[in-house]
């Protein structure tokens, strides 16, 4: 942002202060993530930068914590990763199906009690997780689903659907309903219309809602803490126990992998958002 040449000195100074503040905030946001990378390659067992690392001595770096993550004895990470992926994938599928259907209904102008129903459907996102955790635990314990994968998947569907509802409703807000009427007038049945016309158009919204649901489930720890037994341990649970008990560099190796995963998800979400805006003809 270049300043015009006629700018007075005090505004010039203020402008540089403003740039400095913004730089600091961006640094504050992103820098903490980059501390994890170098430390996960630490050859030593401590979570501080050793003298060797500060001098960029190659011997101070190693892959031992990554090896420990994959091959370590009594290694919890393999099981945790497997569970996390299974739970997140099923929770995402469930959230997408229930959330998309509900969003389709909510975007219809005939929908009665729209406000209150929308508020109810979004509430799991707003209610503090600890309260959701307690409530869902009471329910799952009563129906005998505590400490099962099914129970955790259902819990994560509860937490994931609001995101799908929000993103799909947003996509549908720019949706031209005359195309579905055109399809119907040409003799297409509702299911066919949905599969051939509506779904391809709202797909970016569905997928980006699904990504939110996936991340929510993959990252969720509070509700799982109440629900999980020993066999249902997930990556967040393992990290939580690790961070509470012994902060080992293996956690940082896992964290690095998670940052790479979230970068990939961020890129796909951004690409989808742009595609969706293009499809809906929003130019910015």
């Amino acid at each position, binding site marked *: 942002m270049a300043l015009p040449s006629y700018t007075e000195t005090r505004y010039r100074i203020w402008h540089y202060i403003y740039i400095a503040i913004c730089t600091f905030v961006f640094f504050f946001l992103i820098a903490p993530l980059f501390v994890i990378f170098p430390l996960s390659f630490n050859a030593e067992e401590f979570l501080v930068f050793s003298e060797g690392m500060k001098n960029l001595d190659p011997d101070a770096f190693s892959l031992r914590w990554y090896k420990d993550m994959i091959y370590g004895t009594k290694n919890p990470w393999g099981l945790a990763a497997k569970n996390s992926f299974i739970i997140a994938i099923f929770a995402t599928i469930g959230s997408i199906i229930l959330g998309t259907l509900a969003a389709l209904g909510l975007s219809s102008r005939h929908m009665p009690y729209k406000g209150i129903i929308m508020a109810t459907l979004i509430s799991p996102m707003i209610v*503090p997780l600890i309260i959701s955790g307690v409530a869902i635990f009471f329910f799952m314990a009563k129906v005998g689903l505590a400490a099962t994968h099914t129970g955790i998947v259902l819990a994560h569907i509860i937490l994931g659907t609001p995101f799908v509802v929000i993103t799909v409703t947003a996509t549908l807000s720019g949706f031209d309903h005359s195309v579905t009427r055109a399809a119907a007038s040409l003799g297409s049945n509702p299911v066919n219309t949905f599969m051939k016309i509506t779904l391809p158009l709202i797909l970016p919204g569905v997928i980006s809602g699904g990504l939110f649901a996936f991340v929510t489930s993959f990252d969720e720890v509070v509700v799982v803490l109440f629900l999980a037994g020993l066999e249902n341990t997930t990556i967040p649970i393992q990290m939580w126990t690790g961070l509470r008990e012994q902060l080992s560099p293996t956690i940082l190796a896992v964290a690095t992998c998670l940052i790479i995963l979230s970068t990939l998800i961020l890129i796909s979400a951004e690409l989808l958002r742009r595609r969706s805006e293009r499809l809906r003809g929003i130019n910015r």
Partner: protein
Amino acid sequence: MSSETKKILTTDGIPLEVSLKKAEKKNKIKAFLLVAPLLLFLIITYVFPIGEMFSRSIDDKMITNMLPKTFKEMEKWDGKELPPEEVFTAFYYDFKVLVEKQEHGKLGQRLNKEKNGFNSITKKLFRQVKRKKIDESVSIKEQIMKVHKRWRTVEYWQAIKRTAPPYTMAKYLKGMDMYYAADGSITQVEEDRRIHRILWLRTLEIAFFVTLFCFLMGYPIAHLLATLPMKYSNLLMICVLLPFWTSLLVRTASWMILLQQQGVVNDFFVMIGLVADDNRPEMMYNKVGTYVAMTQILLPFMVLPLYSVMKTISPSLMRAGKSLGGTPFVAFWKVYFPLTIPGIGAGCLLVFILAIGYYITPALVGGASGTLISNQIAFHMKQTLDWSFASAMGLMLLSGVLVIYWIYNKLVGVDNIKLG
């Protein structure tokens, strides 16, 4: 002309109005059927269980079921002096049943919560009943009164009478550091034992300041992102979105590494000579850690709504303000800032709602002085197993959040929440 007043008919002879209404109703049902699966699912697995938390939090039926005869007799007792013979007799027979079922211990514990000293005297009474020392043919009142002097004290019988209703607000009072005194009035606990009130205030304080910090840091960068040309702002947006998509535990872990005593932040302070090497300040396991980590974690939730509002403000407005003679400061304050207020409201309410129920980060970096009400709820769920108290605290927190949610819904509308 009569043809104008005649009703318009459809081809099957039904009036058009009726036919349209029918179609409208059909559409309504169709729309509702699409929402129904999710709505039903949420009501069964989520809304009802929250309601169950409420009934659990006020439930006091256990003791009502333990002493049915006693409470029936006690209805006739005015509660001023020692109860009559009938109450003692009824209590004795109730107690005998409990001894057979080996539930007298539970009764002692429950009554002990009402008034200290019940545990030992129920044990004493238990031994007498067990050894069949109580003669049922003569006055039972006299014999029970001989077991311990507390059985002769009217306050203890009043305490039993207080437990008669199947519902109690005691857990809610406990959450506000109050309790039912001997005469049934609501009393505050002693000054030095008011732990919950401290927690509530601290939760509000931390949520308020985290929201304030997020606003102060988020406003400038949202403004920068909204005014920069697209190709730069897209790049900078990654700085906001990457933390947003990164696991909460990863971000908390990085703050634990940064803030520890031998950590990078302390290293930096020593390097620039701010603190001595042997006197590194404790920045984790206290409020500082909670503030810093929570502000960074919640900042994207402030920036994104602000950004989406600022994006819609035309830059020509500021130029117009300046060309009409306003200094840049005046133009900003009188033109730009008022237009961003919807974004400020949305961002602040969202961050406040999220901050007030935060659990993970305070538990990991907060230590004893940085924990919030959520941590207390988890503690009672997992450690003390006082689930009814945890439910009561949870619902008190929830009612606060719902009020803010309601305001948010009025001001912003839940369907206007923007993600990413």
